[in-house]
């Protein structure tokens, strides 16, 4: 019997004409580890919700076809009964945490199924350890960092020990090693406990661990197959807005001329190295060096005097936890800084000091030569704009125009100029023409842009973005980052908090790495990313192409850089 059997499944949400999924057929056998990928709006989350019967039992709409879980049709069964067999971890993990402390959150599922309290205790211990949350048992979930909450959501599903676990983008807020861990755990559970795993994911390197990859687009399955086979088809990935593996992208870009001697496209660093040797490739180190120094020169040309100075900053939260323990940092005008670090290392806490959302409990933060403690948030927000991770926490107006105009109007800008500013801001984010639309009818990626535009319209010198690419698919991530890069080139100082290593490598100038509330590394991204060992100690891992380059002794940051210095015939790629 199949663990999951889906036949001719279509579903349209109530009040919507368009089918969110249409005509999906899929069979997953017990113990299989499947990764589901595809662009935003492909219907991945909807598909997940049909698996445990939340669709159509809870969310209504037009449903046809059938889903069976271990032979049981989900349509006719209570969701709570199905939970014995299948448990979901929702994409929106914040809304599924409801207990008063970490331990009870994990205990909740097993309690519902009448598991003996001693056994529940053992499961709590084991699952919290698995997701690296041991020691947090008595913590209130509201005081956890973003990534810690996501870990908790995963732990509370694992503790039920169902036969199938389905996780909808479970690693968006995790540090790189944390992402890796989730797939490691999934792999172990499927192998050792014969648990069936279905994970929706955007990260390609992790997906390589799966037995099978299913690609979805526009509500349909467009391809499925062995993970390697799928990841070795650049055209298919491109079509589904999935980021290709960088090593594969590099070898593919050498063009068909550089035939791989009939071999497969290399997917991992190791495979890449042997292909490199087999093909007898060589890099022009001088070319790389001049490329690098030209880039550095260009970036630094835009730097001015210090705009944010942090001296011996300490922050202690109400519960006594010291989240920052003596941070020193100077950020100059025009810089593009990425703040990195493992979950709970204090990144968000740090950047919230820059616009006065948090006040130092020790040391000082000086913005534009003024101590933040002596300056009101109203004043600070004119200099420092802060884009929150979740755009829905700030959008409230009925039209995009009003939303973007809100900041300037608050600052008393005359209406004529407000208009000009809104037009400029919307143009910068590529939303010209959407002035009269209802922001809530836009996609998540577009709402994120509205949020950026509304910060831009206030013309702050410094723009802080907390995880600007989470929840976006690869193409949306790229266009978001291109936008941020343009803003930087226009003279804005950019500070991003991110877990995305490729984003850091491709866009940021400088990386600041935090560990347990202290800065442990700070310097140009290239210099920081070659320290692979030290990064591993703080649960970070450079992007694949950087690790590949490092093995060849080439400090490259992106595929393009490597392609450029391999010195193949011009024109294959810019």
């Amino acid at each position: 019997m199949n663990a999951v059997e889906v036949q001719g499944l279509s579903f349209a949400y109530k009040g919507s004409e368009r089918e969110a999924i249409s005509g999906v057929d899929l069979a997953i056998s017990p113990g299989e580890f499947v990764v589901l990928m595809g662009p935003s709006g492909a219907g991945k989350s909807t598909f997940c919700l049909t698996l445990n019967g939340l669709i159509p039992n809870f969310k209504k709409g037009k449903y046809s076809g059938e889903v069976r879980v271990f032979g049981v049709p989900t349509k006719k069964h209570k969701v709570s009964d199905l939970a014995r067999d299948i448990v979901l971890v929702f994409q929106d993990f914040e809304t599924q945490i409801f207990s008063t402390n970490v331990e009870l959150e994990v205990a909740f599922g097993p309690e519902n199924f009448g598991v003996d309290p001693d056994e529940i205790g053992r499961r709590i211990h084991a699952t919290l350890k698995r997701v690296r949350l041991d020691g947090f048992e008595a913590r209130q979930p509201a005081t956890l960092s973003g990534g810690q909450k996501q870990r908790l959501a995963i732990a509370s599903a694992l503790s039920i020990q169902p036969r199938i676990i389905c996780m909808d983008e479970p690693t968006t807020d995790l540090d790189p090693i944390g992402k890796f861990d989730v797939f490691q755990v999934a792999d172990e559970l499927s192998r050792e406990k014969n648990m069936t795993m279905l994970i929706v994911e955007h990260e390609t390197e992790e997906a390589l661990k799966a037995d099978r990859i299913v690609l979805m687009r526009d509500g349909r399955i467009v391809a499925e197959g062995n993970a390697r086979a799928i990841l070795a088809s650049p055209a298919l990935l491109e079509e589904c807005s999935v980021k290709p593996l960088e090593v594969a992208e590099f070898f593919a870009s050498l063009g068909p001329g550089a035939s791989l001697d009939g071999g497969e496209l290399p997917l991992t660093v190791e495979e890449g190295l042997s292909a490199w040797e087999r093909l007898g490739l060589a890099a022009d180190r001088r070319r790389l060096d001049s490329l690098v120094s030209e880039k550095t020169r260009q970036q630094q040309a835009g730097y001015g005097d210090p705009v944010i100075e942090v001296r011996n900053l300490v922050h202690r939260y109400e519960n006594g936890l010291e989240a920052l323990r003596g941070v020193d940092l100077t950020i100059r005008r025009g810089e593009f800084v990425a703040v990195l670090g493992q979950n709970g290392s204090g990144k968000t806490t740090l950047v919230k000091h820059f616009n006065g959302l948090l006040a130092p409990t020790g040391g000082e933060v000086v913005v534009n030569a003024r101590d933040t403690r002596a300056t009101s948030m109203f004043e600070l927000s004119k200099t420092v704009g802060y884009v929150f991770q979740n755009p829905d926490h700030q959008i409230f107006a009925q039209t995009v125009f009003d939303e973007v105009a809100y900041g300037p109007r608050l600052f008393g800008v005359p209406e004529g100029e407000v208009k000009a500013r809104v037009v400029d801001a919307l143009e910068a984010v590529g939303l010209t023409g959407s002035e009269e639309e209802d922001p809530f009818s836009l996609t998540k990626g577009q709402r994120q842009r509205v949020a950026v535009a509304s910060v831009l319209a206030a013309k702050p010198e410094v723009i802080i973005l907390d995880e600007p690419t989470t929840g976006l698919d690869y193409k949306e991530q790229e266009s978001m980052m291109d936008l941020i890069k343009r803003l930087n080139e226009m003279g804005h100082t950019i500070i991003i908090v991110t877990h995305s290593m490729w984003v850091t490598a491709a866009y940021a100038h400088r990386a600041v790495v935090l560990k347990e509330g202290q800065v442990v590394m700070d310097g140009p991204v290239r210099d920081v990313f070659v320290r692979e060992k030290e990064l591993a100690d703080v649960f970070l891992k450079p992007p694949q192409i950087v690790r590949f380059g490092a093995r060849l002794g080439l400090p490259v940051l992106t595929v393009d850089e490597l392609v450029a210095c391999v010195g193949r015939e011009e024109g294959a790629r810019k």
Partner: protein
Amino acid sequence: MNLYLYLDKDTPIHRMDPRAKLFVLLFSFALPLLNQHPLWVAGAFAVILAYGAAARSLENLRRIRQILFFIFIFSTLVWTFFAKGTDVLIWRVSRQSILYGIGTGLKLDAMIIAGMVFLSTTKNEEISQGLILLGLPYPMAFAFSTALRLVPTFVGAGATIAQAQRSRGLDIDSGSFIERVRKYIPLLVPIFLTAIRSSDGLAMALEGKGFGASTKRTFYLRFKWTARETVVVGLFLALVVANTYLTLTGRTLIRGLMK
């Protein structure tokens, strides 16, 4: 900002069976209600404070002190004018009506403090567990605990949203009353939408994790009704019985009060 009242402390009262805490809550509502004379009410007030001190929970008083103050002043004033007594001082104010006003103010505050101490010592999960153990039908306990669970979710979302809007330059704490009300609008829409989304998400998460699947639910938190529970509840019960006797024999009333 943290609006949970629960204080994670390790006192004998925190460790008590939630049923005992519910009984104590009930009795400490009864004690002030039984009395009329402010001195007697003050006695009940003192008992509640002592219980709260034993639970090391009085630090939460700081957070609700404005409410306590406002309620005390308001009800004292209102009853001073509306109650009638024999020894009139001026106009509608009599010695008895003043006493009655003070008594009522104290009474309300005592009850609020009793509720605060209960919430400071009892987790949400313990409350629903206690109610189920006391025989409340499952669906009702379900609804009750769901409602309780939504509170922290909303509070958390509210705090984030307030931060998001403040960092756009919203200055919530200044301006005239009307201006301030207007400034709250940007908070309300996202809070409302988040509330809808999270109650939806919550219901899905509860069911998705098997809430209500089995009638044989177990509880990870374990409590035993020990001698300690019997002594504490017994003590409160004795106070209530004694107080009831004294009230029935008219000794806690304000002499000369005409309602």
